[in-house]
């Protein structure tokens, strides 16, 4: 078994309203940041997982994203996996 570090970024799918992102974007010009656009707010979920290899870890993480961490009707999950640094 190998331990892998996982970062899952859950984002609202394109076209899904993102009030937090829109509010942040609207607020920025009041601080003088005029060039910022396309603000989207998502969630970042970090954990470790023990798996035989990276592809097995990815398959398991994809499954748990689909079934729990993201709601596929309105959200996408972007998964990054790397081997954990041994302590």
């Amino acid at each position, binding site marked *: 078994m190998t331990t892998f570090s996982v970062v899952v970024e859950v984002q609202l799918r394109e076209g899904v*309203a993102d009030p937090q992102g829109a509010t942040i974007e609207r607020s920025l010009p009041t601080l003088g940041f005029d060039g910022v656009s396309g603000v989207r707010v998502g969630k970042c979920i970090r954990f470790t997982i023990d798996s035989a290899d990276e592809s097995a870890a990815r398959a398991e993480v994809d499954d748990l994203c689909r079934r729990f961490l993201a709601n596929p009707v*309105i959200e996408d999950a972007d998964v990054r996996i790397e081997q954990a640094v041994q302590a």
Partner: protein
Amino acid sequence: MSASVGVLLFPGSNCEQDAMEAVRDLGGDARLLWHGDASLGAVDAVIVPGGFAHGDYLRPGAIARFSPIMAAVADFAAAGGPVVGICNGFQVLTEAGLLPGALQKNRGLKFLCTTVSVRVESTRSVLTSDSEEGAILRIPINHFEGNYTCSQSTLDELRAEDRIVLRYLDNPNGSVDDIAGICNDRRNVVGLMPHPERACHALLGSTDGRSLLQSLLVSAGAGTTVGSA
């Protein structure tokens, strides 16, 4: 014997007392069902009330589906038992896979707390069987994530099968096709964002929610799935 309605209580539910009061006012028997219990006991219908079950952690309704009581609710629904999810309860039922689609943030970027008009689009559901098709009801809404969405194929199915039970007259939140409430294919599981339990007494400004909860009591008493005949 009056119909017995079980009202689920999750950590973070906050409309369960209103729902019980409304059921009792209509002559039904209401009892609280703790989310950690694995059985519903002898109830004839289930209400999943509004609030913030499990603090809406991850997503509204996402954690609630792991509560032991939800397996019993799924079995009860599979056996044809009437189940109604109100507001957060609607979100819980979609996350649990008992209803299709999802509730996303309101289009207007605002939490909405107001009274809206909805039209009864179908009386073929456990929540509308005692209403009249086309009836306009004034019922409060109170939500941030009430913007119903689903895939095009699901929407086609909902329309073709007459499963959109309530529509907003003046869409407050961006819901696709003005949807305020839907039912499952067997018509015994209904989810809606408006709060009929808050429109059951003249003192609350409207009694229009009574016909909906009365329908649920009738369905509960009948002991069979409405609309299957």
